[in-house]
């Protein structure tokens, strides 16, 4: 489905990704691991067309390199950024509304699905999103992206700032997504959850992929873990 080959990305003049290659299949959960600053978020942005990138980037056999973010979104990729980026002055409901494309008909997800997933959001649906608690905001961003009915969802550190119990919940929901045939590219710091739910794990280091295999093989590969994940 998604295929990256030798992607290079730049912030202005600084070269951040040095040839990233991997792919994500349909209905697959792929974890993208790595230390702070290794370039995981940049990879996500490169896919979305939010940073200048070079290389081959294909989605459903179409070239999406250099496409504008809204075009990429319309082709079915959803993105949940790491710093949440909720719209603080809009209500929870309006935030979700903005996630929809068109009038939302034909989407796999409805408002009720979202509110069912996180009842807390339903309680707060007419509140300004800016006053939500940190964790609530995180839930909101996830739902907002789902409202756009993506076939692939890229989630950047979704469990950041969530209470342990909610972290588990998120893990469950990611698996539900998979059951609905949606692929997930999960960018994580916390190994625990990523290892539990993903089908495949990628490890990034210094702007390129240094490991690609199943979670089990990563668990077994002490050197990679030592060198690229722990300090």
């Amino acid at each position, binding site marked *: 489905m998604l295929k990256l080959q030798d992607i290079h990305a730049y912030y202005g003049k600084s070269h951040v990704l040095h040839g990233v290659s991997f792919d994500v299949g349909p209905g697959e959960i792929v974890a993208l691991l790595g230390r702070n600053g290794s370039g995981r978020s940049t990879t996500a942005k490169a896919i979305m067309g939010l940073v200048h990138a070079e290389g081959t980037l294909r989605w459903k056999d179409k070239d999406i390199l250099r496409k504008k973010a809204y075009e990429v979104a319309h082709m079915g990729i959803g993105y949940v950024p790491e710093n949440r980026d909720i719209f603080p002055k809009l209500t929870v409901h309006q935030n979700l509304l903005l996630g929809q494309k068109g009038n939302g008909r034909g989407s796999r997800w409805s408002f009720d699905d979202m509110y069912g997933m996180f009842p807390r959001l339903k309680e707060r649906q007419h509140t300004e999103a800016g006053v939500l608690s940190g*964790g609530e905001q995180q839930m909101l961003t996830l739902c907002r992206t789902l409202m756009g009915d993506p076939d692939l969802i890229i989630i950047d550190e979704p469990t950041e700032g969530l209470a342990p*119990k909610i972290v*588990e919940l998120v893990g469950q929901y990611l698996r539900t997504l998979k059951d609905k045939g949606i692929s997930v590219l999960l960018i994580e710091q916390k190994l625990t959850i990523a290892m539990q739910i993903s089908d495949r794990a990628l490890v990034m280091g210094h702007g390129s992929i240094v490991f690609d295999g199943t979670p089990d093989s990563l668990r077994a590969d002490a050197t990679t873990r030592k060198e690229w994940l722990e300090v």
Partner: protein
Amino acid sequence: MTHALELKSLRKNFGKTEIIRGVDLAVEAGERIAIIGPNGAGKSTLFNLISGRLAPSSGEVLLDGQRIDGKKPFEINRLGLSRSFQITNIFPKLSVFENLRCGVLWSLGYRYSFLRFLSNLHDANARTEELIHQVGLDRKRDVQAVNLTYAEQRALEIGVTIAGGANVILLDEPTAGMSKTETSHFIALIKQVTVGKTLLTVEHDMGVVFGLADKIAVVVYGEVIAFDTPAAVRANARVQEAYLGSSVADAQGGAH
């Protein structure tokens, strides 16, 4: 007897929803308290009430026995209570040095002075240098705060918070967004700069919580359901059910 910080049946509602539903809490001087609780339980709101960002709907907040509820943030700060923010909140266009110096000025009595030069305020400058060193930003002394990395900004956030030398310090998720290594670094830093002070922190990372706190307060749905030592809290069934869940917390807690 007076406590360093005391909350008496504190309540807060936004419109019709009551977010804080009667919190009583007494913190002794020099204690380190961790506040945990599910998302949206009202931890940050509690901090906002204490620090004056919000006014309580009812109830009292006492700092060293003195009522501070309803006061403005700057008044509370002048009484010796300082806080950091969950979302980094520094002066983006000023350098690291200037950020910290701003934090120092009031407490050294320079107030709104425009008759003295900053460069001649030797005590303030010395204190700032010391702070820079403490938070480990020597190398970034003259870098604008916007240009710092996330972790550095968090360190600066703490630096600005402790700069005024307040005795009671509130930290809202100080380690959010940091990697494991950075986190443990940071805990050491926090421990070091808050020696002898009263500390309240909000945290989700059980590793941090257990590594840092003398006592833990568990907030659920706007109420403190437990306030005890870490071991006792961990054993508390209600806490387990309401907050910790099973494996994740264990995994986090076990890592330290």
